[in-house]
């Protein structure tokens, strides 16, 4: 389903759309307040973008440095070319350790690779331990936002879901009560887990360690009890030095939720005593993006979600309308890189307002990349034929000033006299909710000419 059609369905529920828009706008304003408190905010963005550009310019070297240092710390490092290999590696590790129950902390990478269904098919119970992720998991839905996976759920929806799955009181929707219920439920899962799987926010080449940022401490709980920790990361998560970390930690939480820092920024350096740590480095299309001059900067993304919170289209169409693991502006760049034909409507789900570009903490020129994707889609012959021909026709007319003047002349002569039904009908998307402008008798150029003659 194309974005516009899904968005139209989402908007049918007007009060919920308004609530969704306002909830995310609230997060955006929190981000503004947090950013404003740092006089060096724009310098931080510049610095982060420069560190990322440098990292991407020699990503292979940094990855190998990270691998060597992680091994020195006692971790086992795996390389996965694509989602399938990633899923196979994780399954093999789990099976060789006889794991039946796995707890996960939030990882958009494993969403991207569709790891959960793969493991479940092989008889492994997978529990997402981030509260939002657990909500969408129980609802059997994909996340609708990369930082706030269940942002499309109202507290009443969560109450109904928990009543069904966790046995909370019918009709109860008090957030405190529901969070306590989830906490009790998840504690049991943590205690029983045979292994913990986490994502990675930042992997540091010079130390071989990595950092995971959560607000719930669930990553720490998930990997502290079991003896097996698997960390899965996209290869773009590398930063060169520990000294660079401060730049990103300060930007990440402020951009994501307006917090000065995430509640937990947990550092991992090798396995716990008597345990094992496996790090899976995943490409899955990233080197393809790295090769492209136009789209390389999209690998700078630190998955803060600020571009979603600020996007006027995302806020009014919901994450699911993108039909992609990562929705919103950054998702509309990354997803067509995976499958352009499937995601061909996403670069057009954008008014090119540029708010995402200005909000991005690592200065990805998001709206320009979306524009570049439109060209790619046209070049690959994926534009709908109606669009191609209307643009060819428009260009043909506009190249010929006399034809252009004539077309305008007749439109101004004829349209005002047409009966309303001939203008406002199902073929006129403009006129569904909007009036056309009132056509003037004369064009500007006619007025300008006659003024000169006076």
């Amino acid at each position, binding site marked *: 389903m194309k974005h516009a059609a899904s968005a139209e369905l989402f908007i049918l529920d007007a009060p919920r759309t308004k609530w969704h828009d306002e909830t995310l706008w609230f997060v955006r304003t929190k981000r503004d307040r947090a950013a404003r408190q740092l006089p060096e905010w724009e310098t931080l963005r510049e610095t982060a973008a420069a560190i990322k550009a440098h990292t991407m310019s020699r990503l292979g070297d940094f990855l190998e440095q990270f691998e060597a240092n992680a091994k020195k710390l006692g971790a086992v490092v795996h390389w996965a070319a694509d989602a399938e290999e990633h899923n196979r590696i994780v399954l093999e590790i789990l099976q060789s350790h006889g794991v039946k129950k796995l707890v996960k902390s939030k990882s958009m990478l494993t969403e991207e690779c569709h790891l959960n269904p793969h493991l479940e098919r092989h008889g492994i119970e997978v529990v997402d331990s981030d509260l939002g992720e657990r909500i969408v998991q129980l609802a059997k839905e994909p996340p609708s936002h990369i930082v706030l996976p269940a942002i499309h759920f109202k507290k009443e929806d969560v109450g109904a879901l928990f009543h069904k799955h966790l046995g909370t009181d019918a009709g109860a929707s008090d957030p405190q009560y529901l969070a306590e219920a989830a906490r009790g439920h998840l504690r049991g899962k943590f205690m029983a887990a045979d292994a913990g799987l986490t994502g990675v926010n930042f992997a540091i080449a010079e130390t071989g360690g990595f950092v995971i940022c959560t607000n719930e401490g669930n990553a720490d709980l998930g990997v502290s009890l079991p003896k097996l920790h698997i960390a899965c990361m996209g290869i773009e998560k590398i930063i060169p030095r520990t000294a660079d970390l401060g730049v990103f930690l300060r930007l990440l939480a402020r951009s994501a939720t307006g917090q000065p820092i995430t509640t937990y920024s947990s550092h991992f350096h090798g396995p716990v005593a008597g345990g094992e740590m496996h790090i899976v480095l995943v490409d899955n299309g990233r080197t393809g993006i790295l090769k492209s001059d136009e789209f390389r900067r999209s690998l700078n993304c630190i998955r803060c979600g600020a571009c979603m919170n600020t996007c006027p289209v995302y806020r009014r169409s919901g994450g699911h309308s993108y039909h992609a693991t990562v929705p919103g502006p950054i998702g509309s760049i990354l997803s067509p890189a995976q499958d352009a034909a499937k995601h061909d409507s996403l670069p057009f*789900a954008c008014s*090119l307002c540029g708010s995402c570009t200005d909000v991005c903490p690592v200065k990805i020129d998001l709206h320009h990349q979306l*524009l570049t994707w*439109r060209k790619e889609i*046209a070049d690959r012959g994926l534009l709908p034929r109606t669009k191609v021909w209307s*643009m060819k026709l428009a260009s043909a007319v506009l190249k010929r000033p006399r034809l252009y003047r004539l077309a305008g002349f007749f439109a101004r002569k004829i349209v005002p006299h047409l009966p309303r039904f001939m203008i406002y009908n199902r073929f006129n*998307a403009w006129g569904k909710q909007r009036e056309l402008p009132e056509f003037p008798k004369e064009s*500007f150029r006619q007025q300008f000419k006659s003024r000169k003659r006076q």
Partner: protein
Amino acid sequence: MPQVGLFIPCYVDQLYPRVGMATVELLERFGCEVEFPEGQTCCGQPMANTGCTAEARPLAERFLEIFGRYEYVVGPSGSCVAMVRHHYEELLGVSSGSDSSGSCRPGFEDLKKKTFELCEFLTDVLKVDRVDIRFPYKVGLHQSCHGLRELRLASSSEIMGPAHGKAEQLLKLCEGLELTRLERPDECCGFGGTFAVNEEAVSCLMGHDRIRDHLHAGTEVLTANDMSCLMHLEGLIRRDKKPLRVMHIAEILAGDKP
């Protein structure tokens, strides 16, 4: 006397002649010699924004040919001027990225430097500091996105730093004019060119939300430096019979009344 080649966007030419005339009056009042090159049609933005580079390129070439000879090129649209200044580069054979040798079409760099949106031309080139206009209304300024985030005609709410705005600067020169304070000072109206019809539902909802913000703030006259945003918003306002008048900023500064 600054010599100006007047750049009137195609839809302004055909649908909003008054905006063009107000632009002429303003430029002349501030001492410019204004010429309207008849060969101009459209800057090519609709094609470029749809991804149809081949269809946009000849229009960019024509633009350079037609406007190359003027001392200044001025247009009453942030969006169309942004197209020329920021997006013609790749249409006119200047490659981005790997090849920075600059195989630029002759005259393009010069064109880029001398092409201005009306408000910035008034504030930055002509240094206008009085307009002698009385406009005793509550005015809501819509920050059109391309003027805001491509041309930086004002500070955007996302970027941290001192606030500024060229349109606001000019409006404040009008006697009796009161600017309304919006809850969301620079959210997109949802026009977005072909987006307005491709994503009709989202586009109209975005427009409705802007209008509500303005009504809530007490706006009587809604203005902007892009008529395209205003065409979309006015379409919604007229359909819903909302008590809001819509005027391009050139009309206000030229002394028109709502």
